[in-house]
């Protein structure tokens, strides 16, 4: 439980921070084991479903001509989008030196690492013969067939791997000083493990400068990489002559949507961590308020992009495009479409736009809406267009089968499981960043609002 001191306006002391932030690593309740067992069994069910799909073939899924991209590619785009929660947001906040980012950054960066891993699995799950996935890797093949660098799928390979590598390093490097704290505060086998992970970190001025310089460089490098990743994911669609896909705004539209869903995922994760790990003294209403405002801005931006895309299509009045357009506006896919608009635009606008509702609970409700809405958005980009291509003989419908639903649920469970396990072995809030400025000789500067500073 956070101490009474922590719940007052006075910031927690160094020792108190150690106790509060290392508590989840030291204490394990029966709830943890129950949760891990539950999530683990859902993940296991997903693995069984995948193996069944490999063994019995793709006929088990609902993917068939002409709709070759269904739930799996929807999930791929969705998870890559969620991955924008962390590294990108953390890098931007680091570069603008927003002091309120400190308790938020690691919670966010972890989402990136795990969401990217899960997202990157989907093109492999989507392969009929996943053991041939290495064909994407450029290597001197005896078949004399190298990857085609003019294919967006190969761009995906390079972009996602660059982002994953960068995000992992961006997450891992600032963890080293915290591993040193755990090393100093533990005994026995745990001490040995964290001593190895701390890499002999001591905390000399030289080490701090190098770490901060490295983090600044990585923040500068990771922002354009993050933007490129989702732009390239959008190229998977916009480079194809499919109705409503060939759009010049798909790049920024996807990037905005990714950041939008990423912030929503981050708010949900922070709220759960705050409650489950008793981090009320660190994850303050201020953080949710600031992230809620960002979510509101992204909701407006998302609304602008959707309006823009639909309006241009409507004025273009191409027969193939309009067939897809009306499918989403008033025909088969209309219920999903208007649910998406409600979740992504109406709900955040009402909850986050009215100050009285922008509480932690309000932000979490809006975020759940956005996560659902953004998953629907990915689905509605992919399926209606493939179901209504240019000629009527290619019209079809898609119905997801149990194997796809189980695998989809399993990836959500996998995300939560990885996050829970991570929070069990690594301080989920960066201890050294929270302590930064503790010894400042002058009165501490308190950032209380987004962009505002109070002395």
């Amino acid at each position, binding site marked *: 439980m956070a101490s009474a001191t922590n719940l007052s306006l006075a910031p927690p002391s160094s020792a108190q921070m150690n106790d509060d932030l290392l508590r989840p690593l030291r204490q394990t309740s029966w709830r943890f084991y129950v949760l891990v067992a539950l999530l683990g069994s859902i993940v296991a069910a997903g693995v069984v479903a995948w193996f069944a799909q490999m063994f019995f073939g793709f006929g088990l899924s609902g993917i068939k001509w002409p709709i070759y991209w269904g739930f799996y590619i929807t999930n791929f785009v969705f998870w890559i989008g969620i991955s924008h929660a962390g590294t990108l947001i953390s890098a931007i906040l680091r570069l603008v030196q927003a002091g309120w980012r400190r308790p938020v950054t690691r919670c966010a960066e972890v989402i990136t690492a795990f969401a990217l891993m899960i997202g990157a699995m989907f093109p492999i799950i989507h392969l009929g013969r996943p053991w041939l996935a290495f064909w994407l890797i450029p290597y001197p093949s005896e078949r004399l067939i*190298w990857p085609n660098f*003019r294919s967006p799928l190969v761009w995906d390979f390079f972009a996602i791997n660059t982002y994953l590598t960068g995000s992992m*390093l961006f997450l891992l490097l600032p963890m080293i000083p915290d591993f040193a704290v755990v090393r100093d505060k533990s005994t026995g086998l745990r001490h040995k493990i964290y001593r190895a992970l701390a*890499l002999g970190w001591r905390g000399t*001025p030289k080490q701090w*400068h190098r*770490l901060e310089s*490295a983090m600044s460089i990585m923040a500068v490098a990771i922002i354009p990489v993050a933007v490129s990743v989702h732009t390239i994911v959008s190229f998977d669609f916009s480079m194809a002559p499919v109705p409503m896909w060939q759009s010049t705004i798909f790049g920024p539209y996807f990037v905005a949507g990714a950041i939008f869903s990423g912030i929503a995922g981050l708010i949900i994760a922070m709220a759960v961590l705050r409650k489950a790990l008793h981090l009320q003294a660190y994850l303050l209403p201020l953080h949710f308020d600031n992230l809620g405002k960002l979510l509101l801005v992204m909701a407006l931006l998302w609304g602008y992009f959707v309006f823009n895309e639909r309006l241009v299509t409507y004025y273009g009045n191409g027969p193939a495009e309009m067939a897809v357009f009306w499918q989403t506006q008033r025909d088969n896919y209309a219920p999903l479409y208007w649910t998406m608009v409600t979740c992504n635009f109406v709900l955040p606008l009402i909850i986050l736009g009215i100050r009285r509702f922008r509480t932690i609970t309000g932000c979490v409700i809006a975020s759940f809406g956005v996560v659902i809405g953004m998953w629907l958005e990915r689905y509605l980009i992919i399926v209606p267009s493939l179901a209504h291509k240019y000629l009527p003989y290619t019209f079809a419908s898609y119905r997801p089968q149990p194997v796809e639903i189980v695998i989809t649920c399993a990836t959500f469970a996998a995300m939560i499981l990885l996050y829970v396990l991570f929070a069990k072995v690594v301080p989920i809030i960066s201890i050294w960043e929270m*302590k930064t400025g503790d010894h400042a000789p002058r009165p501490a500067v308190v950032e209380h609002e987004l962009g505002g500073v109070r002395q």
Partner: protein
Amino acid sequence: MKAVYGLYPDGSSAQQAVNRLRAAGLDDREITVISSQPMDEYEFGEMDKATWIWWIACGGGLAGMATAFALAWLTETWWPINVGGLPTWAWWPNMIIIFELTMLGAIVATAATLVVTAGLGRGGRLYDPEVSNGMILVGVENPPDGALGDLQRTLAAPPGAHVKTI
């Protein structure tokens, strides 16, 4: 390893200790300062600030760019594939590969430089776990035997000092 060091509860005391060690004739390279957070607010926190890491990151980026260029060029000229009427060497799509590997090169070079220049992975140096509780360590590693007493007195002078010898 022999060492004499003081643990200080705040930055002002640690700064005083560093100043006194300098006044006693020690060079910055001979003084060890350790803290559990960056101490940019104090002069001693600025020690060893100069770094080539930005230049090395740029070098890594250039190496990544060269690798991407070579990979794309060699692949497309040695095994040409006619795709969608695009030229064999198509700048626009290749720029994506070149951009990604440039950034990857810069990121990996930065991480490698941090590990090497921050001395990560090297053990057996002066350290005290009290640092994790917020204490600031100021000390001298392998001091000359004759100077031990003077150093202990120097380190004990600032308020709140707790001097140890190992």
